[in-house]
Protein backbone atom coordinates (compact mmCIF):
# COMPACT_ATOMS: atom_id res chain seq x y z
CA UNK A 1 0.00 0.00 0.00
CA UNK A 2 1.59 3.25 -1.07
CA UNK A 3 1.74 6.42 0.98
CA UNK A 4 -0.95 8.18 -1.04
CA UNK A 5 -3.45 5.40 -0.44
CA UNK A 6 -2.67 5.37 3.29
CA UNK A 7 -3.04 9.15 3.52
CA UNK A 8 -6.39 9.11 1.68
CA UNK A 9 -7.69 6.26 3.84
CA UNK A 10 -6.71 8.16 6.99
CA UNK A 11 -8.46 11.29 5.69
CA UNK A 12 -11.62 9.24 4.99
CA UNK A 13 -11.61 7.83 8.51
CA UNK A 14 -10.94 11.22 10.12
CA UNK A 15 -13.74 12.86 8.12
CA UNK A 16 -16.30 10.32 9.32
CA UNK A 17 -15.10 9.70 12.85
CA UNK A 18 -14.06 13.25 13.80
CA UNK A 19 -17.46 15.02 13.77
CA UNK A 20 -19.32 12.05 15.28
CA UNK A 21 -16.84 11.62 18.14
CA UNK A 22 -16.81 15.39 18.63
CA UNK A 23 -20.57 15.67 19.02
CA UNK A 24 -20.61 12.61 21.31
CA UNK A 25 -17.99 14.26 23.53
CA UNK A 26 -19.94 17.53 23.65
CA UNK A 27 -23.17 15.73 24.61
CA UNK A 28 -21.57 12.99 26.76
CA UNK A 29 -23.47 14.17 29.85
CA UNK A 30 -26.76 14.49 27.99
CA UNK A 31 -27.05 11.81 25.33
CA UNK A 32 -30.78 12.51 24.83
CA UNK A 33 -29.74 15.99 23.71
CA UNK A 34 -28.13 14.39 20.66
CA UNK A 35 -31.50 13.59 19.13
CA UNK A 36 -33.83 15.83 21.14
CA UNK A 37 -33.11 19.55 20.71
CA UNK A 38 -34.32 21.98 23.45
CA UNK A 39 -37.14 23.29 21.22
CA UNK A 40 -38.74 19.84 20.99
CA UNK A 41 -38.06 19.17 24.67
CA UNK A 42 -39.95 22.35 25.65
CA UNK A 43 -42.87 21.42 23.46
CA UNK A 44 -43.13 17.88 24.79
CA UNK A 45 -42.78 18.98 28.43
CA UNK A 46 -45.69 21.43 27.97
CA UNK A 47 -47.77 18.71 26.42
CA UNK A 48 -50.01 17.11 29.01
CA UNK A 49 -51.58 14.00 27.54
CA UNK A 50 -54.14 13.94 30.34
CA UNK A 51 -55.59 17.24 29.20
CA UNK A 52 -58.29 16.41 26.74
CA UNK A 53 -59.77 19.86 26.29
CA UNK A 54 -59.39 21.51 22.92
CA UNK A 55 -58.17 24.78 24.37
CA UNK A 56 -55.35 23.05 26.25
CA UNK A 57 -54.35 21.22 23.12
CA UNK A 58 -54.35 24.41 21.10
CA UNK A 59 -52.28 26.18 23.73
CA UNK A 60 -49.52 23.62 23.36
CA UNK A 61 -49.73 23.71 19.60
CA UNK A 62 -49.36 27.51 19.67
CA UNK A 63 -52.43 28.23 17.57
CA UNK A 64 -54.95 29.85 19.89
CA UNK A 65 -58.71 29.91 19.76
CA UNK A 66 -60.20 33.20 18.53
CA UNK A 67 -61.86 35.40 21.17
CA UNK A 68 -64.61 37.99 21.01
CA UNK A 69 -63.43 41.54 20.38
CA UNK A 70 -65.78 44.47 20.88
CA UNK A 71 -69.56 44.46 20.90
CA UNK A 72 -71.52 42.04 18.74
CA UNK A 73 -74.36 43.53 16.71
CA UNK A 74 -77.79 41.96 16.16
CA UNK A 75 -80.75 43.27 14.19
CA UNK A 76 -83.91 41.74 15.67
CA UNK A 77 -86.02 42.53 12.59
CA UNK A 78 -83.80 40.98 9.92
CA UNK A 79 -81.88 38.54 12.11
CA UNK A 80 -78.56 39.78 10.70
CA UNK A 81 -75.69 39.96 13.16
CA UNK A 82 -71.97 40.66 13.18
CA UNK A 83 -69.49 39.27 15.61
CA UNK A 84 -65.96 40.75 15.79
CA UNK A 85 -63.37 38.07 16.52
CA UNK A 86 -59.85 38.73 17.74
CA UNK A 87 -57.28 36.36 16.30
CA UNK A 88 -53.68 36.44 17.50
CA UNK A 89 -50.85 35.28 15.29
CA UNK A 90 -48.23 33.88 17.69
CA UNK A 91 -45.90 32.83 14.88
CA UNK A 92 -42.90 34.61 13.42
CA UNK A 93 -44.37 34.35 9.93
CA UNK A 94 -47.45 35.94 8.42
CA UNK A 95 -50.51 33.73 8.43
CA UNK A 96 -53.85 33.96 6.70
CA UNK A 97 -57.23 33.16 8.20
CA UNK A 98 -59.13 31.81 5.23
CA UNK A 99 -62.29 30.49 6.74
CA UNK A 100 -64.31 30.51 9.93
CA UNK A 101 -67.75 29.00 9.67
CA UNK A 102 -70.18 27.41 12.11
CA UNK A 103 -73.80 26.66 12.80
CA UNK A 104 -75.46 28.29 15.81
CA UNK A 105 -77.60 25.86 17.69
CA UNK A 106 -79.80 25.89 20.74
CA UNK A 107 -78.66 22.91 22.71
CA UNK A 108 -81.82 22.76 24.84
CA UNK A 109 -84.19 22.41 21.93
CA UNK A 110 -81.70 21.01 19.43
CA UNK A 111 -82.70 23.64 16.85
CA UNK A 112 -80.26 25.37 14.47
CA UNK A 113 -80.84 29.12 14.64
CA UNK A 114 -78.52 30.21 11.85
CA UNK A 115 -74.99 30.29 10.50
CA UNK A 116 -71.89 32.35 11.05
CA UNK A 117 -68.92 32.87 8.71
CA UNK A 118 -66.31 35.43 7.74
CA UNK A 119 -66.84 37.51 4.64
CA UNK A 120 -63.28 37.46 3.35
CA UNK A 121 -59.89 35.95 4.30
CA UNK A 122 -57.47 38.18 6.16
CA UNK A 123 -53.72 38.10 6.66
CA UNK A 124 -52.22 38.72 10.10
CA UNK A 125 -48.64 39.90 10.59
CA UNK A 126 -46.28 37.96 12.90
CA UNK A 127 -47.17 38.48 16.56
CA UNK A 128 -50.06 40.81 15.70
CA UNK A 129 -53.77 40.68 16.48
CA UNK A 130 -56.28 40.70 13.67
CA UNK A 131 -59.94 41.56 14.03
CA UNK A 132 -62.10 39.38 11.84
CA UNK A 133 -65.70 40.35 11.38
CA UNK A 134 -67.83 37.24 11.36
CA UNK A 135 -71.34 37.76 10.09
CA UNK A 136 -74.45 35.66 9.87
CA UNK A 137 -78.20 35.54 10.01
CA UNK A 138 -80.35 34.06 12.76
CA UNK A 139 -83.86 33.08 11.80
CA UNK A 140 -86.04 35.66 13.69
CA UNK A 141 -89.05 33.33 13.80
CA UNK A 142 -87.01 30.55 15.42
CA UNK A 143 -85.40 32.98 17.84
CA UNK A 144 -88.82 34.31 18.89
CA UNK A 145 -90.14 30.79 19.25
CA UNK A 146 -87.27 29.89 21.56
CA UNK A 147 -87.67 33.11 23.53
CA UNK A 148 -91.31 32.22 24.12
CA UNK A 149 -90.35 28.69 25.09
CA UNK A 150 -87.65 29.76 27.57
CA UNK A 151 -89.32 32.90 28.95
CA UNK A 152 -87.16 35.26 26.89
CA UNK A 153 -83.90 33.77 28.09
CA UNK A 154 -81.96 31.70 25.57
CA UNK A 155 -78.84 30.65 27.42
CA UNK A 156 -77.65 27.41 25.96
CA UNK A 157 -76.33 28.28 22.51
CA UNK A 158 -73.47 26.32 21.04
CA UNK A 159 -71.48 26.51 17.83
CA UNK A 160 -71.66 23.29 15.86
CA UNK A 161 -69.55 22.04 12.97
CA UNK A 162 -67.02 24.79 13.47
CA UNK A 163 -64.50 24.90 10.64
CA UNK A 164 -61.47 27.13 10.85
CA UNK A 165 -58.82 27.29 8.14
CA UNK A 166 -55.79 29.15 9.38
CA UNK A 167 -52.25 29.06 7.98
CA UNK A 168 -53.30 26.28 5.63
CA UNK A 169 -54.44 24.05 8.48
CA UNK A 170 -58.09 23.06 8.72
CA UNK A 171 -59.46 22.59 12.22
CA UNK A 172 -62.87 21.09 12.82
CA UNK A 173 -64.70 21.17 16.13
CA UNK A 174 -67.90 19.21 16.52
CA UNK A 175 -69.07 21.67 19.12
CA UNK A 176 -67.85 24.81 20.87
CA UNK A 177 -69.32 27.06 23.52
CA UNK A 178 -70.95 30.04 21.81
CA UNK A 179 -69.77 32.25 24.67
CA UNK A 180 -71.05 35.81 24.53
CA UNK A 181 -72.88 35.21 21.27
CA UNK A 182 -76.01 34.37 23.22
CA UNK A 183 -75.95 37.79 24.89
CA UNK A 184 -77.08 39.10 21.50
CA UNK A 185 -80.43 37.49 22.01
CA UNK A 186 -80.92 38.96 25.45
Amino acid at each position, binding site marked *: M*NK*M*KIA*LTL*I*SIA*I*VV*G*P*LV*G*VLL*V*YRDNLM*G*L*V*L*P*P*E*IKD*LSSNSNKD*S*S*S*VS*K*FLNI*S*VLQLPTLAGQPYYNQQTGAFSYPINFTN*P*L*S*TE*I*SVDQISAEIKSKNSNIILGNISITQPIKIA*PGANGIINATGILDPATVNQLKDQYSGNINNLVLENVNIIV*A*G*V*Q*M*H*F*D*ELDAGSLQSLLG
Partner: protein
Amino acid sequence: MKTLSPRLNWFGLAAGIIILIVLVISFYVPWWQLTVGQDLVKVNASPVNTNFGLFGKQFTVPLIWATNLVSILTLTASGVVMLVYSIFPAKSYSKELLGFSYKKPLYILILFVSGLLVITAIAGVLGFSIPLVGSTNFAVPTQFIPSNFAITALVSGSFQLPFYLAIVAAALCIAARLYHQRATGITNHASSTSASTNVTQK
Protein backbone atom coordinates in the same frame (compact mmCIF):
# COMPACT_ATOMS: atom_id res chain seq x y z
CA MET B 1 3.81 14.22 -35.81
CA LYS B 2 1.95 15.54 -32.78
CA THR B 3 -0.50 13.28 -30.94
CA LEU B 4 -3.44 14.97 -29.24
CA SER B 5 -3.08 14.09 -25.57
CA PRO B 6 -6.05 14.37 -23.20
CA ARG B 7 -4.17 16.03 -20.37
CA LEU B 8 -7.40 16.40 -18.44
CA ASN B 9 -10.12 13.98 -17.50
CA TRP B 10 -12.95 16.27 -18.57
CA PHE B 11 -15.64 14.20 -16.86
CA GLY B 12 -13.69 14.37 -13.62
CA LEU B 13 -13.16 18.10 -13.98
CA ALA B 14 -16.89 18.68 -14.53
CA ALA B 15 -17.72 16.32 -11.62
CA GLY B 16 -15.31 18.11 -9.26
CA ILE B 17 -16.72 21.52 -10.13
CA ILE B 18 -20.34 20.37 -9.80
CA ILE B 19 -19.62 18.64 -6.47
CA LEU B 20 -18.29 21.93 -5.08
CA ILE B 21 -21.24 23.85 -6.57
CA VAL B 22 -23.68 21.37 -4.99
CA LEU B 23 -21.89 21.81 -1.67
CA VAL B 24 -22.20 25.60 -1.71
CA ILE B 25 -25.82 25.68 -2.94
CA SER B 26 -26.85 23.09 -0.36
CA PHE B 27 -26.08 25.52 2.46
CA TYR B 28 -28.93 27.69 1.20
CA VAL B 29 -31.29 25.35 -0.66
CA PRO B 30 -32.28 21.93 0.72
CA TRP B 31 -32.21 18.76 -1.37
CA TRP B 32 -35.72 17.90 -0.23
CA GLN B 33 -38.31 20.05 1.45
CA LEU B 34 -41.48 19.18 3.32
CA THR B 35 -44.02 21.82 4.31
CA VAL B 36 -47.18 21.52 6.36
CA GLY B 37 -49.83 24.21 5.92
CA GLN B 38 -48.41 27.68 5.32
CA ASP B 39 -44.92 26.79 6.59
CA LEU B 40 -46.27 25.86 10.03
CA VAL B 41 -43.99 22.85 9.93
CA LYS B 42 -41.05 22.79 7.57
CA VAL B 43 -38.35 20.20 7.02
CA ASN B 44 -35.33 21.24 4.99
CA ALA B 45 -33.36 18.06 4.39
CA SER B 46 -29.99 17.71 2.76
CA PRO B 47 -26.77 15.88 3.61
CA VAL B 48 -25.15 19.30 4.08
CA ASN B 49 -27.71 21.30 6.04
CA THR B 50 -30.78 19.70 7.59
CA ASN B 51 -33.02 21.84 9.75
CA PHE B 52 -36.58 21.93 10.95
CA GLY B 53 -39.09 24.74 11.34
CA LEU B 54 -41.89 24.40 13.84
CA PHE B 55 -44.39 27.28 14.11
CA GLY B 56 -41.76 29.70 12.81
CA LYS B 57 -38.95 28.45 15.09
CA GLN B 58 -35.90 26.96 13.37
CA PHE B 59 -33.86 24.22 14.97
CA THR B 60 -31.57 21.35 14.13
CA VAL B 61 -30.81 18.01 15.77
CA PRO B 62 -27.19 17.77 17.03
CA LEU B 63 -26.66 14.23 15.72
CA ILE B 64 -27.96 15.25 12.29
CA TRP B 65 -25.74 18.34 12.45
CA ALA B 66 -22.73 16.07 13.02
CA THR B 67 -23.65 13.83 10.06
CA ASN B 68 -24.11 17.00 7.99
CA LEU B 69 -20.57 17.99 8.95
CA VAL B 70 -19.35 14.53 7.82
CA SER B 71 -21.06 15.11 4.47
CA ILE B 72 -19.63 18.63 4.12
CA LEU B 73 -16.09 17.36 4.71
CA THR B 74 -16.65 14.33 2.49
CA LEU B 75 -18.00 16.38 -0.43
CA THR B 76 -15.24 18.99 -0.02
CA ALA B 77 -12.53 16.33 -0.03
CA SER B 78 -14.18 14.46 -2.89
CA GLY B 79 -14.56 17.61 -5.02
CA VAL B 80 -11.04 18.90 -4.41
CA VAL B 81 -9.38 15.51 -4.92
CA MET B 82 -11.44 14.90 -8.08
CA LEU B 83 -10.25 18.28 -9.43
CA VAL B 84 -6.61 17.44 -8.65
CA TYR B 85 -7.00 14.02 -10.27
CA SER B 86 -8.67 15.51 -13.37
CA ILE B 87 -5.74 17.84 -13.95
CA PHE B 88 -3.19 15.04 -13.48
CA PRO B 89 -5.00 11.89 -14.63
CA ALA B 90 -1.82 10.11 -15.78
CA LYS B 91 0.28 10.56 -12.65
CA SER B 92 1.34 7.49 -10.69
CA TYR B 93 -0.96 8.42 -7.78
CA SER B 94 -3.95 9.41 -9.96
CA LYS B 95 -5.74 6.08 -9.57
CA GLU B 96 -5.70 6.47 -5.78
CA LEU B 97 -7.08 10.01 -6.08
CA LEU B 98 -9.86 8.82 -8.39
CA GLY B 99 -10.67 5.84 -6.16
CA PHE B 100 -10.91 8.18 -3.16
CA SER B 101 -13.18 10.74 -4.81
CA TYR B 102 -15.50 9.17 -7.35
CA LYS B 103 -17.62 6.96 -5.07
CA LYS B 104 -18.32 9.45 -2.32
CA PRO B 105 -21.02 11.61 -3.99
CA LEU B 106 -22.83 8.43 -5.06
CA TYR B 107 -22.68 7.04 -1.51
CA ILE B 108 -24.00 10.31 -0.08
CA LEU B 109 -26.83 10.35 -2.62
CA ILE B 110 -27.78 6.72 -1.92
CA LEU B 111 -27.64 7.23 1.87
CA PHE B 112 -29.76 10.39 1.61
CA VAL B 113 -32.47 8.77 -0.53
CA SER B 114 -32.42 5.62 1.64
CA GLY B 115 -32.78 7.75 4.77
CA LEU B 116 -35.76 9.58 3.30
CA LEU B 117 -37.41 6.33 2.26
CA VAL B 118 -36.89 4.78 5.71
CA ILE B 119 -38.19 7.87 7.55
CA THR B 120 -41.29 8.19 5.35
CA ALA B 121 -41.96 4.45 5.73
CA ILE B 122 -41.68 4.68 9.54
CA ALA B 123 -43.94 7.76 9.52
CA GLY B 124 -46.44 5.83 7.40
CA VAL B 125 -46.49 2.97 9.92
CA LEU B 126 -47.19 5.52 12.70
CA GLY B 127 -50.12 6.93 10.72
CA PHE B 128 -48.40 10.02 9.28
CA SER B 129 -48.56 9.98 5.51
CA ILE B 130 -45.59 11.95 4.15
CA PRO B 131 -45.36 12.43 0.38
CA LEU B 132 -41.80 12.35 -0.98
CA VAL B 133 -43.00 14.24 -4.04
CA GLY B 134 -46.36 15.99 -4.38
CA SER B 135 -49.06 16.99 -1.94
CA THR B 136 -51.54 15.20 0.22
CA ASN B 137 -54.11 16.13 2.83
CA PHE B 138 -52.81 14.94 6.15
CA ALA B 139 -55.15 14.26 9.07
CA VAL B 140 -53.58 14.20 12.53
CA PRO B 141 -54.28 10.72 13.97
CA THR B 142 -57.05 10.80 16.56
CA GLN B 143 -54.84 9.37 19.33
CA PHE B 144 -52.79 12.59 19.31
CA ILE B 145 -55.68 15.07 19.65
CA PRO B 146 -58.73 15.50 21.88
CA SER B 147 -62.04 13.94 20.88
CA ASN B 148 -64.61 16.07 18.98
CA PHE B 149 -61.70 17.79 17.26
CA ALA B 150 -59.98 17.16 13.91
CA ILE B 151 -57.01 18.74 12.18
CA THR B 152 -56.13 18.34 8.54
CA ALA B 153 -53.38 20.13 6.68
CA LEU B 154 -51.90 20.15 3.24
CA VAL B 155 -48.50 18.42 3.29
CA SER B 156 -46.18 18.97 0.34
CA GLY B 157 -42.85 17.33 -0.39
CA SER B 158 -40.48 18.12 -3.23
CA PHE B 159 -36.91 17.54 -4.33
CA GLN B 160 -35.01 20.74 -5.04
CA LEU B 161 -32.30 21.77 -7.50
CA PRO B 162 -29.23 20.64 -5.45
CA PHE B 163 -30.62 17.09 -5.36
CA TYR B 164 -30.72 16.91 -9.16
CA LEU B 165 -27.28 18.52 -9.38
CA ALA B 166 -25.98 15.87 -6.98
CA ILE B 167 -27.32 13.15 -9.31
CA VAL B 168 -25.49 14.82 -12.20
CA ALA B 169 -22.30 15.03 -10.10
CA ALA B 170 -22.52 11.34 -9.13
CA ALA B 171 -23.10 10.35 -12.75
CA LEU B 172 -20.12 12.44 -13.90
CA CYS B 173 -17.97 10.82 -11.20
CA ILE B 174 -18.83 7.38 -12.59
CA ALA B 175 -18.18 8.66 -16.12
CA ALA B 176 -14.78 9.95 -14.94
CA ARG B 177 -13.98 6.49 -13.57
CA LEU B 178 -14.99 4.82 -16.85
CA TYR B 179 -13.03 7.41 -18.85
CA HIS B 180 -9.92 6.97 -16.69
CA GLN B 181 -8.64 3.89 -18.54
CA ARG B 182 -9.09 5.57 -21.89
CA ALA B 183 -7.52 8.82 -20.75
CA THR B 184 -4.44 7.17 -19.29
CA GLY B 185 -4.28 4.73 -22.23
CA ILE B 186 -4.14 7.55 -24.79
CA THR B 187 -1.64 9.41 -22.64
CA ASN B 188 0.54 6.31 -22.36
CA HIS B 189 0.21 5.80 -26.10
CA ALA B 190 1.21 9.43 -26.64
CA SER B 191 4.26 9.09 -24.36
CA SER B 192 5.31 5.80 -25.93
CA THR B 193 5.00 7.37 -29.40
CA SER B 194 7.10 10.26 -28.20
CA ALA B 195 9.66 7.88 -26.66
CA SER B 196 9.96 5.78 -29.83
CA THR B 197 10.46 8.95 -31.86
CA ASN B 198 13.33 9.89 -29.53
CA VAL B 199 14.89 6.44 -29.99
CA THR B 200 14.65 6.72 -33.77
CA GLN B 201 16.29 10.16 -33.70
CA LYS B 202 19.20 8.78 -31.69
